[in-house]
């Protein structure tokens, strides 16, 4: 192992928002940066921001961001002398840390042994117990545990019992068992899942706390013997163990509790010889009793809330500590001010079951800055025009609001999210807003079962109600009308014999039909539907006026589609074509004879499954052979000819129908 030395060039073995976040601080510290990128990330924001970048051929994480050899090679080729792993990927791989050190690189993170110690959850728990950190009662199960032993283990831990994989994290392989009868099955499937996901089927049981809060302590240690905590974060708003909203401080933690949590966290860090930034996670019961969960030996996704209440830059501290410097006084005696709340904006379709979405964001704009004592910070790996792929996690941005009080911070965050312009694949924005504005959240009465009590697909339904959608659709129709390029500046849709209503039918987020007309004096009228009432309307930049009432809207009109944003809700409206697909005169999939001739070959029979392009029938006409091929995948439903049949132009030869996919 080498002695710490200041970093002269930093390779970031990560992508997206965390890579951008690290580059920001490195740049402030005048440290040149090297980005790495998969093929899917070529040209991504972190690559654009970095001073240099190295391609990692391929797309899957295994082929790219998890390739230790390729990353070390990238560092060698660019002369980087330090590696920051970010979070996820290789950030908690002791082996990677070790290989970095062996290659003479500074690893921005704890010593490999500390990572290894915490990577094995069973071992981690034993070490914590030894260090006097409260842990949940638990039992480790190896492959050979029999049924009797299993029952005994369940009794020892006490129900409800949580079954989880010894290795890994992120909620995978976790199961809650309420009663002894279900334990055996849960253990078995957890083993299978853990083995598949992490290559190790070791599982353990521990007590499950009902209605728990997720409280975690940020710790920091340097190579000079200092270990401190930087207060707590509360991450109780989770869905299937994935954090959705995080905040600091926690409303459930008073100074006395904070001191106990801090002592436990610092003791935990010291117990494993920790260096750098780490997080000690606790599960906390409603009565304030807390138990050690795990140590995350890396920078957390939600680190910004800590930064915002302490004014510290955790990445700067990481880089300084990695470079051998002691923690500065402001970190050794940290102060906290106000309240910060973070929301994870994710590309996913909440109402349809959180399916990840992907594609290009024409606009990805979340308000950032300092207004009226409220600070809004956005950490993102994407900008307007960027695309989100399905290869990696779909975290679009972390939006963090700081204010002197929790109420203001939460409502400022909700407001920012409401007004964000997210013109692209669906996101969880509406879920975030409804959660932040939920009475339980506002009251601070939260726990990790929040989304079990409140159906996220219900909370995630569009913010815009029907009446607002009407207004947004009027704005879209007016935007279409006013963006029309006409050679003459005559009233839109002008007619000399009729009132000149121009109707646009929208689909997309909502189905609406809006008619607009422009009067001789240039003023506009609008009507929603055939019998909607008539409105006097006007669209100015960022403003929509309806019958004398003006509201803020932002309209982005493209060819055939419109994005409308307001602080009350948003809509993506797609024009319905005036020309619907034509009605078919013959059965779909009918193949006609292109010319008169004789059938000389028939390659298929009724009921055959054929693929697009497959030859079906061959005709001979005027000494040339013409092959009739399947226009699409399907099944031959009709065959009207045989070898030798004479056919006229236009005769139906064969019909290939598309078969709906089973299920």
């Amino acid at each position: 192992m080498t002695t710490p030395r200041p970093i002269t060039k930093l390779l970031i073995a990560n992508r997206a928002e965390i890579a951008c976040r690290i580059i920001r601080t490195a740049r402030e510290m005048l440290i040149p940066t090297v980005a790495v990128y998969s093929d899917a990330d070529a040209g991504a924001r972190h690559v654009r921001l970095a001073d240099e970048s190295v391609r990692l051929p391929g797309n899957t994480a295994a082929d790219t961001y998890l390739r230790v050899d390729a990353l070390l090679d990238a560092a060698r080729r660019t002369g980087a002398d330090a590696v920051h792993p970010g979070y996820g990927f290789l950030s908690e791989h002791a082996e990677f840390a070790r290989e970095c050190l062996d290659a003479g690189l500074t690893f921005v993170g704890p010593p490999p042994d500390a990572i290894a110690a915490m990577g094995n959850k069973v071992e981690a728990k034993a070490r914590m117990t030894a260090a006097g950190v409260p842990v949940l009662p638990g039992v480790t199960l190896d492959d050979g545990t029999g049924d009797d032993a299993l029952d005994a283990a369940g009794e020892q831990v006490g129900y409800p019992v949580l079954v989880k994989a010894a290795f890994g994290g992120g909620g995978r392989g976790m199961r809650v068992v309420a009663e002894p009868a279900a334990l055996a099955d849960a253990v078995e499937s957890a083993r299978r899942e853990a083995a598949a996901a992490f290559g190790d089927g070791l599982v353990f049981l521990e007590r499950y706390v009902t209605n728990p809060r997720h409280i975690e302590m940020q710790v920091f240690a340097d190579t000079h013997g200092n270990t401190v905590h930087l207060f707590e974060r509360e991450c109780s708003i989770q869905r299937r163990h994935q954090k959705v909203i995080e905040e600091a401080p926690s409303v459930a933690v008073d100074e006395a509790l904070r001191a106990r949590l801090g002592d436990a966290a610092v003791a935990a860090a010291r117990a494993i010889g920790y260096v750098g930034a780490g997080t000690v996670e606790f599960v906390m019961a409603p009565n304030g009793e807390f138990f050690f969960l795990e140590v995350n030996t890396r920078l957390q996704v939600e680190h910004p809330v800590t930064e915002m209440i302490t004014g510290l830059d955790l990445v700067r501290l990481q880089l300084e500590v990695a470079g051998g410097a002691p923690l500065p006084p402001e970190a050794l005696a940290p102060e906290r001010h106000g309240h910060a709340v973070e929301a994870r904006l994710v590309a996913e379709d909440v109402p349809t079951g959180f399916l990840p979405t992907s594609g290009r964001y024409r606009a990805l704009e979340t308000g950032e800055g300092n207004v009226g004592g409220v600070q809004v910070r956005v950490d993102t790996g994407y900008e307007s025009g960027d695309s989100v792929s399905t290869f990696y996690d779909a975290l679009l941005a972390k939006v963090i609001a700081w204010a002197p009080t929790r109420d203001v911070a939460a409502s400022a965050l909700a407001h920012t999210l409401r007004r964000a312009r997210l013109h692209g694949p669906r996101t969880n924005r509406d879920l975030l807003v409804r959660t932040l504005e939920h009475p339980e959240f506002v009251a601070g009465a939260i726990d990790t079962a929040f989304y079990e009590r409140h159906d996220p697909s219900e909370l995630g339904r569009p913010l815009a109600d029907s009446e607002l959608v009407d207004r947004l659709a009027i704005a879209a129709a007016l935007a279409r009308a006013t963006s029309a390029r006409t050679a003459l500046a005559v009233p839109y849709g002008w007619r000399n014999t009729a009132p000149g209503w121009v109707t646009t039918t929208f689909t997309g987020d909502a189905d609406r039909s809006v008619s607009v007309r422009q009067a001789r004096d240039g003023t506009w009228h609008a009507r929603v539907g055939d019998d909607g009432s008539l409105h006097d309307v006007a669209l100015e930049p960022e403003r929509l006026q309806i019958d004398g009432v003006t509201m803020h809207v932002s309209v982005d009109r493209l060819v055939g589609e419109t994005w409308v944003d307001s602080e009350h809700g948003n809509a993506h409206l797609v024009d319905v074509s005036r020309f619907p697909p034509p009605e078919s005169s013959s059965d779909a999939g009918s193949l006609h004879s292109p010319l008169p001739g004789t059938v000389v070959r028939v390659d298929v029979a009724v009921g055959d499954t054929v693929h697009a392009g497959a030859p079906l029938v061959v005709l001979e006409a005027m000494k040339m052979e013409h092959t009739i091929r399947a226009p699409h995948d399907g099944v031959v439903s009709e065959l009207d000819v045989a070898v030798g049949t004479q056919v006229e132009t236009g005769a139906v030869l064969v019909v290939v129908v598309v078969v709906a996919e089973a299920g």
Partner: protein
Amino acid sequence: MSVLSSTVDPASETFATNRAALLDLLEQHDTEVAKALAGGGEAYVARHRARGKLTARERVELLVDPGAPFLELSALAAWGSPFHVGASIVTGIGVVEGLECVVIAHDPTVRGGTMNPYTLKKNLRALEIARVNRLPVINLVESGGADLPTQADLFVPAGQIFRDLTQLSALGIPTISLVFGNSTAGGAYVPGMSDHAVLVDGRAKVFLGGPPLVKMATGEDSDDESLGGAAMHSRVSGLSDYFARDEHDCIRIGREIVANLNWRKLGPGPSRPADAPAFAAEELVGIASADLRVPFDPLDVIARVVDGSRFAAYKPDYGTSLVTGWASIHGYPVGILANARGVLFMEEAKKATEFILLANQTDVPLLFLQNCTGYMVGKDYEQAGIIKDGAKMINAVTNSTVPHLTVIMGASYGAGNYGMCGRAYGPRFLFAWPNSKMAVMGPQQLAGVLSIVARQSAESQGKPFDEDADARQRQAVEEQIERESHAFFNSGKVYDDGIIDPRDTRTVLGIALSAVHSNVVEGRRGYGVFRM
């Protein structure tokens, strides 16, 4: 260029009277137009729709670009005749894929879309507009052919439709037929003479003789589809270039054809600032005289029509009964001739002649704003050669080759109608305000003239003159002329291209000017400008 000011007092009694009268006339106009819009009436429209068909106007609306203006022409054709208002056909200037086209759509809900003499007149006028302005033509065809009871007034002249279509093609002006239904016998030559034809599956019927006629002629048994269906014409005869699955598909294909015409307008585009006038168009209904005996200042009209109300008067102090000058409308430069006090004297005629020659020297289109009671009569004027001066003006109007647009704002009487570019003088477009009147002379004048002639005749024959009969006769003649000079009456005869709301004048002229610039805009040269 100087900006006009307004002499209009919207609080005056004249303004209020005019406004009330004009709004009343416009309401009457709307009532008449509504008849055309309603097609053959609810029952027929419902039956048409039940067959899954679009109405003529729905077809037009689907054909033109959403939001683009559509200037319907001759909406009151056949008004005052036994035929349905609108003459069972819709014509107009529409924008398709950004190109201004003449659209001609049969209305099959009015007596099957059959053609009567007014239909023919309106159809031919639309084709003429296409020819002189070089506008592509799109026929939306569904017509039962000739209205047989009127065939005597129709059959022979109707041949011109097919002649015009192919002549347009020879001039390089594209012609497109979208066939939605019947297009039989002579009607078959509409798609037949068009450059492009699209037929709707199961609906289009394009044949010279239907099954009964074929049976009578040759004894052959046949059916509609094999004689003239879309499938047959698209795959066998080749008369149809495109097989349309349904009406929407047909219109979609029609728009695609237009998009691929590679069409370029030959005239220049707008070259002046196209800012709105400084005064409200709304006031035009208070300016236009309801009582044509009361003249109004045409500068007040011009100030509400031309770009920025800018107007450079030509010879403002000479021949002051006619205003002439330069301006622009929607960015297109125009020379304007407008009657100020009805009568044209020698000076006015000579001034107009010079102005027309100047416009031809500079390739500037001319706008005639008519409120003209004719050329001055009387011994002094005859002896001074009013005929010769009027002849100069009529000569200049006739032989001018820059585009002419005419708006009849009030009176259009006598040779004034000719000198100010009435219908017979081939303006590219001619529109009338609803208060306007057009006749050889005013009703009282005409009745009086007839009375004087009758009195002289009686005197020369030594017969007694029946004063009571004369009074009755005068009354009857006055009423007849009043009726026949009414704007609706003349519009019904297709003597104009439609009655327009005075407040729409700028818009209508903008569309018309844009359309005329599809063709070359070039004045007549040869002699220099004669100083009269």
